[in-house]
């Protein structure tokens, strides 16, 4: 049987306050990433700092704006898997290029 409850809104509805708070957090993190870039951190750390903040912002958007926090876990799994496969693509390509004796001429 399909109950009335199942039929109507069992989906999460975010409050205006939550949506605005997430927006404010994203504004703050944008300011933070600009400020951190002005610190002129030495080479790998500047990229790491920028990426950590970017992943934090992306996480906020995915969890609250895209509702993965309340959603079926399957959708979150799809998202995480896409990131893992992307890491595999970038990682293996980087390894290939790094361990070549010399730069490919056309590069």
């Amino acid at each position, binding site marked *: *049987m*399909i109950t009335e409850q*199942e*039929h*109507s*809104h*069992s*989906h999460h*509805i*975010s409050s*205006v306050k939550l*949506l*605005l708070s*997430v*927006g404010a957090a*994203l*504004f703050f993190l*944008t300011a933070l*990433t*600009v400020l951190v*870039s*002005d610190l*002129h*951190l030495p*080479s790998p750390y*500047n990229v790491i700092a*920028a*990426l950590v*903040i*970017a992943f934090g*912002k*992306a996480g906020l*958007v*995915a969890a*609250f*704006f*895209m509702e993965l926090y309340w*959603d*079926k876990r*399957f*959708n979150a799994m*799809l*998202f995480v*898997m*896409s*990131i893992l*496969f*992307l890491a595999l*693509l*970038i990682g293996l*390509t*980087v390894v290939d*290029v*790094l361990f070549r004796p010399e*730069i490919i001429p056309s*590069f």
Partner: protein
Amino acid sequence: MAQSTTVTQHDSHVQHHFVNANQQLDSAKMGMWVFLVTEILFFGGLFAGYTIYRMLYPELFVQASIELDKVWGTVNTLVLIASSVTVALAIRSAQVGKPKRVITYLVTTIILAAVFMTIKYFEWEHKFSLGIYPGKFYSFDGIDNPKAHIFFSFYYLMTGLHGIHVLVGMGLMVWLIIKTKKGEITSDYYNPVEITGLYWHLVDIIWIFLFPLFYLIK
């Protein structure tokens, strides 16, 4: 037999192959997420290329990034985040059954997207006037590096592909406004708003990565 009568009595917006509205929305969302996965891997190829070239020519990326205006990049990031907030508010308004507010928020989103594209246009226009074109059309001599065109090829490809996504998103918002005006978006059926929202937020996420990777290199 009572069960089958219940199933056939469901609302007009539920397609006959779904059990109920909830299942229909869940299926639509899952389908959209599968599409977003392909989008991530689509942009992913460009991110992989970017990674390789930044690894091979780290000093080039530092030199060339100076030509990008950090202030306008930051403004555009804030504009796009604000547009994500308005889309999220549009979805909420649809869920609680306030179609007028849905339209207001969607119009605001289109305006913010237009501001983003206008700033992007002036950034590109400025570079073109300096002779900074992608690939072999590059004719700017302000950067002391023979590979300078490579940085800008990535810049134009990645921000350009992202820009096309913003334009598509604006078109989808117009479609949603028309649908809402026709009364087709209700608190019982707001799937198109929710699905378009997922797309728009992903476009926002991609920009969240493009911004520090191009504008904030020191």
